[in-house]
C-alpha cells in the first residue's frame, strides 16, 4: 500500500477545516448554515468533551471519535482537525528560514521531549478543572485560541479593509459593500491573542510543532494516548539508509535517525516523513506484534520552562497594563453609578455557574452575533472568566428576533434555545435610575429606552413632577427580558439612567399582556379636518 496518499488526504481535510473555521471566525459565519458550523466544531476535542458533560449524545460525541482515532493511529487530530495546529503548519511553511542552498527550508533536528513541562501543564489543567476552574482550559484549548486569534486580530483587519473598500465604492455610487461599525476591542482578549500569536508564531517558525508538544494540554493528552496506539509510525530498519530526510521534514522534531526510532507520542501525524523517505522506509507498525518499545526518559530542559513562565508573566503584565489605562470620563456627567450585581451572560447560558465553568472562550458566538452585543469579557466575570463572552450593552443590544449564539456554541456553555423560548428568556432585569434620567434632570421628553424596548417592559408613564405632559420610564420586571436595548439607547453619560442587572440564573419572563384594540374604522367617514 502506498502510504504517501495519506499525506494528501491529511492536507486536503486540514485545509477544509482551516478555511471554513477561518471564514466563520472572520465574519462570514452568516453565510453558513448553523449545521455546517456545528459540523466543523463537532470534533474539536475540548469543546466537544465539555458539551458532552452537559448534554451527552451523538451531537456532542465528537471527542469520542477523536479519542478512538488517536488510540488507533495516533494524533491525527493535531494535523487535520485542530485549526491551531494547521495554522502553525502554514506559519512554518511561509516563514521558516531557508537552509543552505536556499532551495529547501531549513531542516528540522531531532530534539528531546519536554515531558515534565507538557505533562505538568496537562496535569495542572486537569486538576484545576476538577477543582472547579475552567481557566487553564479557557487559556490553552487550541480551538479556542484559534478562535480568539482570528476574532481579535484578523477580524479588525478585515473590518478595516471592508470599510476602505466600502468608502472607495461609495465614491463611485456603489453601496453594495456596507461599512461595518466596529464596536471596539476588548483589551484583555486582544492582548492575550497577541501574546499567543507571538509565542505560537515564533515556536512554529523556529521549531515546528514545539507549542503542541510543550504547552498544549490536548497535545499532551493525545501524546499519552498515542503511546498505546494500535498502529504507530515506525522506521523500517532494513530500508533506512540514515539519510535523515524524514527528520528534516519532521515538524514535531520527533524522529531519532541515529537510533532509527520515532517518538510517536510527539508525532502529529503530518505524514511528511512518509512522503520524504526515498526508500519507503516509514510504515505503520502494529503494536500487537512484538517489538521493542522505545522509552523516553529525558531530563527536563530548564531553559524552555523559564521561557514559558517568562512569557506568561509578560502576557499578564502587558494586559494588566493596558487595562489600567482604560478610563471612562465624559464632559456631561450623570451622578449615580450603574453597578451591576451580576454581569449579563448570553442567552442559553442558563446559569452563570454553568456558563463560567463550561465556556472555553473560543468567541464563536462573538463573531456570529449580528449586533456585536457579545464581546469578550475583561473582568466582568472576575479574573478567571476573562475572554468569555459577555453582553456589552454599551456596544450594542441583543436583537429580539435572534438566537444564533445559542445554536452554535461548541462547548455547551450556551445551550440551544428556540427563538420563541429565547424571546422570553430573562437574562437580567432593567433597573431605572431616576436621578440620571433626562426627563428628571432636564425636564424634557426623552424615552429612548422605552422606544427600543421590544416587550414594553420599559414604558412611559406620566411624570408627576413635570408640567403634566412629560412622561418618564417605568420598568415591569416580570416581562423584561434583559436584552439591553434600553441601556444602549439611553443617551446619558457617563452613567446610563437605565441599565440591566444580570440574572445569576436566567428565568422565564412573562408574556406582555395585550388587550385587543377597537378595530372598527369607518372608511367612508369624512376626514377630521
Amino acid at each position, binding site marked *: 500500500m502506498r502510504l504517501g496518499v495519506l499525506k494528501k488526504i491529511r492536507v486536503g481535510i486540514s485545509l477544509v477545516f482551516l478555511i471554513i473555521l477561518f471564514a466563520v471566525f472572520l465574519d462570514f459565519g452568516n453565510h453558513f448554515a448553523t449545521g455546517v458550523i456545528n459540523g466543523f466544531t463537532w470534533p474539536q476535542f475540548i469543546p466537544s468533551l465539555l458539551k458532552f458533560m452537559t448534554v451527552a449524545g451523538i451531537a456532542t460525541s465528537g471527542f469520542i471519535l477523536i479519542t478512538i482515532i488517536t488510540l488507533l493511529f495516533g494524533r491525527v487530530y493535531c494535523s487535520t482537525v485542530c485549526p491551531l495546529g494547521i495554522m502553525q503548519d502554514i506559519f512554518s511553511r511561509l516563514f521558516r528560514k531557508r537552509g543552505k542552498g536556499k532551495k529547501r527550508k531549513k531542516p528540522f533536528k531531532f530534539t528531546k521531549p519536554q515531558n515534565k513541562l507538557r505533562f505538568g501543564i496537562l496535569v495542572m489543567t486537569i486538576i484545576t478543572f476538577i477543582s472547579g476552574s475552567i481557566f487553564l482550559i479557557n487559556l490553552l484549548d487550541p480551538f479556542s485560541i484559534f478562535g480568539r486569534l482570528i476574532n481579535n486580530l484578523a477580524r479588525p483587519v478585515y473590518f478595516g479593509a471592508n470599510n476602505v473598500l466600502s*468608502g472607495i465604492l461609495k465614491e463611485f455610487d456603489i453601496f453594495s459593500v456596507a461599512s461595518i461599525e466596529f464596536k471596539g476591542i476588548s483589551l484583555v482578549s486582544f492582548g492575550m491573542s497577541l501574546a499567543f500569536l507571538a509565542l505560537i508564531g515564533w515556536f512554529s517558525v523556529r521549531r515546528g510543532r514545539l507549542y503542541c508538544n510543550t504547552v498544549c494540554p490536548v497535545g499532551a493528552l493525545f501524546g499519552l494516548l498515542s503511546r498505546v496506539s494500535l498502529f504507530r509510525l515506525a522506521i523500517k530498519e532494513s530500508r533506512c539508509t540514515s539519510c535523515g530526510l524524514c527528520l528534516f521534514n519532521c515538524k514535531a522534531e520527533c524522529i531519532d535517525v541515529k537510533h532509527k526510532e520515532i517518538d510517536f507520542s510527539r508525532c502529529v501525524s503530518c505524514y511528511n516523513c512518509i512522503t520524504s523517505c526515498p526508500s519507503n522506509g516509514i510504515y505503520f507498525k502494529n503494536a500487537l506484534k512484538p517489538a521493542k518499545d522505545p522509552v523516553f526518559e529525558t531530563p527536563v530542559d530548564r531553559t524552555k520552562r523559564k521561557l514559558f513562565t517568562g512569557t506568561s508573566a509578560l502576557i499578564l503584565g502587558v494586559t494588566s497594563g493596558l487595562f489600567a489605562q482604560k478610563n471612562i470620563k465624559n464632559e456631561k456627567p450623570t451622578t449615580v453609578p450603574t453597578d451591576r450585581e451580576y454581569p449579563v451572560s448570553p442567552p442559553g447560558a442558563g446559569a452563570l455557574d454553568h456558563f463560567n465553568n463550561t465556556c472555553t472562550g473560543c468567541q464563536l458566538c462573538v463573531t456570529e452575533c449580528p449586533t456585536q452585543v457579545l464581546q469578550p469579557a475583561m473582568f466582568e466575570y472576575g479574573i478567571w472568566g476573562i475572554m468569555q463572552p459577555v453582553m456589552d450593552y454599551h456596544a450594542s443590544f441583543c436583537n429580539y428576533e435572534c438566537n444564533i449564539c445559542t445554536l452554535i456554541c461548541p462547548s455547551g456553555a450556551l445551550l440551544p434555545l428556540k427563538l420563541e423560548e429565547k424571546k422570553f428568556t430573562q437574562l437580567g432585569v432593567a433597573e431605572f435610575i431616576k436621578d440620571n434620567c433626562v426627563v428628571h434632570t432636564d425636564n424634557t421628553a*426623552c424615552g429612548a429606552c422605552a422606544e427600543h424596548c421590544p416587550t414594553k417592559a420599559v414604558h412611559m408613564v406620566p411624570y408627576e413632577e413635570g408640567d403634566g405632559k412629560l412622561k418618564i420610564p417605568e420598568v415591569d420586571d416580570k416581562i423584561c427580558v434583559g436584552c439591553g436595548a434600553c441601556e444602549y439607547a439611553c443617551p446619558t453619560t457617563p452613567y446610563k439612567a437605565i441599565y440591566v442587572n444580570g440574572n445569576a440564573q436566567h428565568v422565564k419572563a412573562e408574556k406582555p399582556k395585550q388587550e385587543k384594540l377597537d378595530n372598527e374604522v369607518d372608511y367612508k367617514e*369624512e376626514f377630521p379636518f
Partner: protein
Amino acid sequence: MKRRDFILKTLGAGAGVAAGATIGLGGYHNLMGANPGMPQLPHDLVAVKGGDPVTMFDKAMKSLGGMKNFVKQNQTVVVKPNIGWDVPPERAGNTNPNLVGRIIEHCFEAGAKKVYVFDHTCDKWNKCYETSGIEKAAKDNGATVVPGNTEGYYQEVEVQGGKSLTLTKIHELLMESDVFINVPILKHHGSADLSIAMKNLMGVVWDRGYWHRNDLHQCIADYCTYKRIPDLNIIDAYRVMKRNGPRGVSVDDVIMMKQMIVSTDIVAADAAATRIFGEEPSDIGHIKIADNMGVGTMDLSKLNIDRVIL
C-alpha cells in the same frame, strides 16, 4: 447580492466594475434647498382614504398633478421611509413596502436617473431592511438601497435656525441628491407622542442620542429649519400602530386605517395625520414648536385640501 459575493465579484471583475460605475461624484449642489422650479401645485395637501397603499398613492399623485411636478428628467431622488425596526409590515413599525415600491416606480416614470433608499435604523440595519420588506420592494423597482449604519456616511451640517439643535450630522445622500421624498408611517410614539413626518427625519441624522438629551421636541422642530427638508411628505397611515410605539409589541397594537396624507408642508402633513390618529396637533410638542417657528402651518383651515374617499 450579498455583500461578500459582491466583494468577490468586484475583485474578479476588477477595473470593469469601477469603470462601469463612474456615475459621477454627486456634488453638494442641492444645498440650496427645495427642488428649484417646482410648479404651483393644485392643492396644499391631499388626504386619501379607503384603499390599499398603492391605489391611494396613485390617487394622491393624480390630485397633485403627478410625480413630474416633483421629479425632473435625470434627477437623483432620495426616498426615506421609516425602516427603524426588525419587524414585518403587519406590525406597522416600518413604512409599507408596497408604497415605497410604488413611489420609486413613479420617480422613474417621471424621469429620475437614480433613486436611493435608506434609513438610519434602530435595530440591526440589515435585518430591518430585510424584514420590513422594503429592501426587496426598493430593489425590485430599480432603486439603490444604501446603508446608513456607520458614521462615515454622515456629514456635519449647521442648523442655523435651530435652538437646541445647531450642529448635526446628516446622511451624505441628502446633500448629493436633487429630490428628497419623506415617507414616514404614522404611529404612536412613547417619547415624541406621535411619530410622523418630522420625527421620521431623525433617521437621516447620525447622533440621535443628542436629540434625546437636549429637548427632543425642540430638536425635532429645529431640524426642520434646516434647508434640506423634504420636497414631498407621503404619510403612510394604512396600518397604524395605536399604542406601544414606535416599536410595538405585537400585531394587537395595530389597526387598519387605510389612509394617506401627502403634502409639501411637513407641519401641515403632520397636523392632518395627528387628526386622523385622533389627537390635536397643538398637543404634540414638536408640531406646535415647528408651527411657532414658521416651518409650516398646523392650521389646516387655511389650506387648500383635496379630500379623496375611495
